[in-house]
């Protein structure tokens, strides 16, 4: 059995008295794609920030290809995990053109052929020369998010964390970006951790999923099984909350109230 790409054990994070993440463990095989599903306050964003080293876990360990992330050097950590944030308007440096932003990362990591790699990256996310020469201000939300993906891919990280990376986009744009991500996954075999509140989107991109509720994993498994045969009442509530034909918000409200009373 080979070492998993990403191996997370017993992750805990508390802010004051508020437990954000409690005893979270999971593994991601090479080429795998895992969804972290939850609502606000579920701890999914805190987990994402711990994975990329922006937050230090109180307890627990993150191993990338068997190496502890906490012990890695700055550059090694960057090559282990990268992230795409939610807000396309704030996640790019407003003062740099897209090309300059990509070049910046590559220079830091001493890439031998930066110009060629930039072209390759732009091509991978479907941006052209015009977008490359533009600053974020001159681009649409979807284009900015593609640029952010290219920047994250630049150093060929082992794991890509997507923190609600498509939720701020218009429906038609969201679909374009989802396809870009699906293609990247297929072509590069990169490991993906997809943080989202949207089950349908997670289903499109992931093989497996964890459902988080108030910092605790309430259910985990293959996404199709999870969706067709959910075991935990909270998972069931999440699934039924998605609007569909014959949807009854009244019933869901009752379900939710029952769940709140139980906990």
């Amino acid at each position, binding site marked *: 059995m080979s070492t998993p790409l990403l191996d997370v054990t017993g992750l805990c994070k508390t802010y004051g008295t508020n437990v954000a993440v409690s005893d979270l463990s999971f593994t991601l095989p090479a080429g795998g794609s895992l969804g972290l599903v939850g609502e606000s306050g579920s701890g999914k964003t805190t987990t994402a920030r711990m994975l990329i080293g922006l937050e230090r876990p109180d307890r627990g360990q993150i191993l990338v290809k068997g190496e502890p992330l906490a012990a890695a050097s700055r550059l090694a950590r960057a090559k282990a995990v990268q992230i795409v*944030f939610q807000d396309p308007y704030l996640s790019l440096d407003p*003062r740099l053109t897209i090309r300059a932003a990509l070049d910046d990362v590559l220079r830091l990591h001493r890439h031998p052929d930066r110009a060629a790699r930039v072209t390759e990256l732009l091509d991978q996310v479907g941006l052209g020369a015009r977008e490359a020469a533009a600053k974020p*201000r001159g681009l649409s939300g979807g284009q900015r998010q593609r640029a952010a993906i290219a*920047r994250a891919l630049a150093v060929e990280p082992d794991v890509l964390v997507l923190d609600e990376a498509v939720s701020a986009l218009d429906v038609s744009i969201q679909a374009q970006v989802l396809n870009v991500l699906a293609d990247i996954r297929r072509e590069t075999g990169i490991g993906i951790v997809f943080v989202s509140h949207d089950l349908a989107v997670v289903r499109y991109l992931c093989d497996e999923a964890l459902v988080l509720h108030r910092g605790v994993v309430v259910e985990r498994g293959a996404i199709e099984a999870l969706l067709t045969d959910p075991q935990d009442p909270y998972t069931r509530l999440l699934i039924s909350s998605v609007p569909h034909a014959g949807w009854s918000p009244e019933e869901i409200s009752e379900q939710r109230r029952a769940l709140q009373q139980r906990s």
Partner: protein
Amino acid sequence: MSTATVSHPRLQSRLGGWAARLGRLTWPVRICAVLLVLVGLGAVFAPWLEPYDPTDGDLSNTLVAMSGAHWLGTDAGGHDTFSQLLAGGRTSLLGPLGVVLFSTVFGALVGLFSAWRGGWVDALIGRVLDVMFAFPSLLLAILAVALFGKGLGAPVVAMAIAYMPYTARLVRSLTAQEKTRPYIAAYRVQGHSPAFIALRRLLPAVGPTILAQSTVNFGYALLDLAALSFLGLGVQPPTPDWGAMINQSQAAVLEGQPLSAVLPAVLVVVVVVAVTVIGEHFGDRLAGREAKA
């Protein structure tokens, strides 16, 4: 040769950018910029422009009205007003320039450091700045004069210290706000060093706003230093200075000879209005760009 061919188009595009920027300015800003340049040129080239020695009082020609010999008349001490205005511009503008340069550089560094480190360092610096805020600039300047004697040096240093916390706090809050943006987090995730991110990415991002504020501060510093000279605690006659000129001409005003007091006062107002309008114009533009982004 190759460097020349590469840099030339870049320079040209930069010049083009500047031209385009000038073209976008509103009329009040343009007028203010022209006035400021004129006053600045007058101060720089004062030794070559002034028709009389500004420190040389001709007691046989006091309070002369505007004439061919004395374009803007003379004051009660017989000094040529036009020459005094030109020469006075040097001290009157140099002082605030010193204040702003010093307070901006140190304030920016302190603010940046404070926001970047955060935690107890930030809290401590915040407390120190709170204490510094308690000393109004003019008061600190007066105290400095009491300790070190009259002149330009001590008050300028004192005021630079008094202005520093304003810049520091602005930079701190701008940086702290900018720091929470995902693009800064992305730089960290990419493996950039904290020093690189703070100095090469954060500082340039907040720089224009700091400059806009410092431009406005220049006006306040000019007013404070002129007030000090007016009180007889700043620049000492016979060294020409606008505030001192007004002080010297007070009696003449009450005698109905206001010219030698009004003209330096007008210059003070013009320069302060001009820097305020320009500073706020760019401040608003930056704020607007922020809102749109």
